């Protein structure tokens, strides 16, 4: 305990180490929180759920905070209905009897539109309750300057989705302007560079039902261009989920890989030094062969031929790193302390080889292991991201690397969806820097030769 306290107090003299430690502690706390708040199964279900789960999110929408930049005023998604869900009177539903057999169920959506850009798309989700005769819904759009545009007439059979952008007749009526633009465009603005007309819009869904207790319900979604704190991807998924869940995955992967490789390398080096002779020579030669084994291509092969599971990759990665060049560093230090008299004392009282290795040799050098171990963590986090960018990410889990990979595959940089790349990259960078800063400071604490440099 005192050793840890002494290390911490030595670290506190390096401002970068303090910042790094703060980052690491925050990441660990957040990871614990997120794993409890969204359990593994739920996270996987949400991420792999397909468009059904995220139906009401816009595609590749930027995060909401871009509206904080001066001169940016992008529309948020407006979701309304069905009637009676919200407390205000933005959605109103009334029944009017037209004749003995017919009743008009009129749902009116009223909303304000104040953004400087057009929405991404507009969809109306219709559901009905009827026995035989299908209700007929006609949709009318009312603009702030009191123009009336007929959208479409739909017969409702089960759940029906009206995607305004796919209504060809509507598009023709709007002079071949895409409906999400045409419906919101200010008629006075330039036709080549239309601007949206701000004000209160209304959509009237008048459903004609032919049975007494038949009913029609409607839900309007005007997809915006911004969503949530992190935006969405091409499958409408909230990136926040992947960014949050990526943290425990990255931490676990980096930590396990670093522990696995550094501890195993350390033990192998200790065994080689202690037994010397053939064992040492064999370990040295294996290290030389291992040096030229192409780790990443082998990981790619394993991912393609066997399994993409992140834990299989982790195992292979550790196996390939046992005989890494770190052995040489550890070996040199082990050789120095092997001559200490207390090993002779241990042998004199009859301690076995492995007792000496694990109880006397290795514990003595754990401090030299720590900095390398901490510095190695971010490089393993990046290995995971590298695999994901090569389409070899875990098939189930949302990770930062997979977000980057999706962004790359969908040409995010080319199309200007910078947030998609920047968010996971920033998280990777911050977590990597956190560990690296602590590791470098630890190195100076434990290596007196470096302390003054």
């Amino acid at each position, binding site marked *: 305990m005192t050793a840890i306290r002494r290390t911490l107090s030595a670290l506190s003299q390096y401002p970068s180490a303090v910042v790094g430690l703060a980052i690491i502690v925050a990441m660990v706390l957040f990871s614990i929180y997120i794993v409890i708040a969204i359990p593994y199964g739920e996270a996987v279900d949400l991420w792999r759920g397909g468009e059904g789960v995220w139906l009401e999110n816009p595609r590749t929408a930027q995060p909401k905070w871009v509206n904080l930049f001066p001169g940016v005023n992008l529309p948020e998604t407006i979701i309304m209905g069905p009637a009676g869900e919200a407390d205000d009177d933005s959605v109103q539903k009334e029944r009017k009897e037209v004749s003995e057999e017919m009743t008009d169920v009129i749902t009116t959506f009223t909303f304000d539109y104040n953004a400087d850009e057009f929405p991404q798309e507009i969809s109306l989700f219709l559901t009905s309750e009827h026995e035989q005769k299908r209700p007929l819904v006609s949709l009318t759009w009312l603009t702030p300057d009191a123009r009336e545009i007929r959208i479409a007439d739909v017969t409702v059979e089960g759940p029906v989705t009206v995607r305004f952008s796919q209504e060809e007749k509507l598009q023709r009526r709007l002079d071949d302007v895409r409906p999400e633009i045409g419906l919101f465009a200010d008629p006075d603005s330039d036709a080549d560079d239309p601007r949206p007309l701000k004000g209160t819009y209304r959509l009237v869904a008048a459903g004609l039902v032919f049975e007494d207790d038949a009913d029609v319900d409607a839900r309007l979604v005007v997809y915006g261009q911004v969503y949530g704190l992190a935006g969405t991807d091409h499958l409408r998924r909230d990136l926040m989920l992947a960014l949050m869940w990526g943290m425990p995955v990255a931490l676990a992967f980096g930590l396990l890989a670093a522990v696995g490789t550094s501890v195993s390398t350390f033990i192998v080096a200790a065994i080689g030094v202690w037994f010397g002779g053939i064992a040492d020579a064999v370990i040295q030669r294996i290290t030389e062969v291992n040096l030229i084994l*192409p780790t990443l291509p082998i990981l*790619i092969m394993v991912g393609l031929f066997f399994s993409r599971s992140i834990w299989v990759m982790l195992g292979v990665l550790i196996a390939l790193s046992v005989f*890494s060049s770190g052995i040489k560093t550890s070996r040199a230090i082990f050789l120095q302390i092997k001559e200490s008299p207390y090993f002779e004392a241990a042998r004199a009282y009859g301690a076995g080889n492995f007792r000496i290795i694990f109880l006397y040799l290795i514990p003595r050098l754990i401090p030299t292991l720590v900095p*390398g171990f901490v510095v*190695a963590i971010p490089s393993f986090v*990046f290995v995971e991201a590298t695999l994901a960018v*090569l389409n070899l990410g875990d098939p189930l889990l949302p990770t930062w690397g997979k977000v980057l990979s999706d962004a*790359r595959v969908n040409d995010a940089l080319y199309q200007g969806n910078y947030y998609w790349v920047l968010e996971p990259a920033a998280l990777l960078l911050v977590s990597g820097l956190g560990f690296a800063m602590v590791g470098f400071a630890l190195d100076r604490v434990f290596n007196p030769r470096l302390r003054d440099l």
Partner: protein
Amino acid sequence: MTDAALPLQPDAASAERPRTQSTLTRVVHYTGLRMIAMFITIMIGVYLTILIANMGGHVDKIRRGYIREQVAISVGFNEEFKNMTSEERRAHIDKLVALQEKRMGLDQPFLLRSFSFLWGAMTLDLGWADNMSSDSGSRMVRNIILERLPATLLLFSTSFMLNFLVGIFVALYLSRNYGSRLDRAIVGLAPTSAAPSWFYGLFFILLFAALLGWFPFGGLVSAPPPDSIVNYALSVLNHMVLPVIAIFFSSIFLGIYGQRTFFLIFSHEDYVDMARAKGLSDRVVERRYIMRPTMPTIVTSLALSIIGLWFGSIVLETIFNWPGLGRLLYLASNIFETSVIVGSTVVYAYLLGITVFFLDIVYALIDPRVKVGGNQGGQA
């Protein structure tokens, strides 16, 4: 990539053994021994790669596919079989394939076969691709890979030389002015090397290609390729800037930090003080008394960093659409082209071996223990 990138790498204790041979003989002797050792090492490395790849029987599949293609071609071209019905011809091909498989030893136990595939791999006889071909139309994996190799080598030799030269000069400068503001800035920046080159590549594409438009998003030359050689070279240079900067940026700060630390450690040795006391100029002290003993250690750490570079290259080339080996591996893995994947893995093992060997020679040339006649295994 698995090594903690820390600057302290104590080199092996040397056992002084005075000899009277000329420097050249010793270097040649050392080089020869290293070459044999490296050849054996590469062979074992390639063999392990084959074992890993074949666990699912994929190498066998490649070889069977190769045989079938060969047989089908020879049957197709043979006039004698022109009159056969397709049924007969298929039966005949099957018979020939079985015969050929027996001749190639595919009915032998795996242990024996793995050695024959090792031979194929060592002689770069890597089989045929099913769905990929080189730009010249060949479907031999060797041609596909060799066609991509120059692009990779161009990119990596350039960035490696840049890293090496800039690293050494800046590190020397910093060790002279250590504690200065620039020195502290670079030490502070060293942790940025935790991220691989492709990661910075993304940022550079965003900044210089997408926002500023100074450089192209990726590729080797602009399309269509310019006619004159000068314009072609200029276009390639223009496309090279961003990937090279990305590699440079991802490794330079850690490199400088490590080298500067070595220089500082060695410049505090007693013999350096002695040389200064003798009144030698700073330049001479630096070159003869600091650089010389530091170089072997620096070369060793370079060997490790260059291996990291090779692997970073796979994604870097993918991100920049650079038509090299890394991107080939990525494309092959996307369409599951086994022979190309195994082939490029083998070539990567080769490249690593050659890199390590090359650095070993450099090491032999600069390590006084080899030059003056120390122990053979300089790079222990």
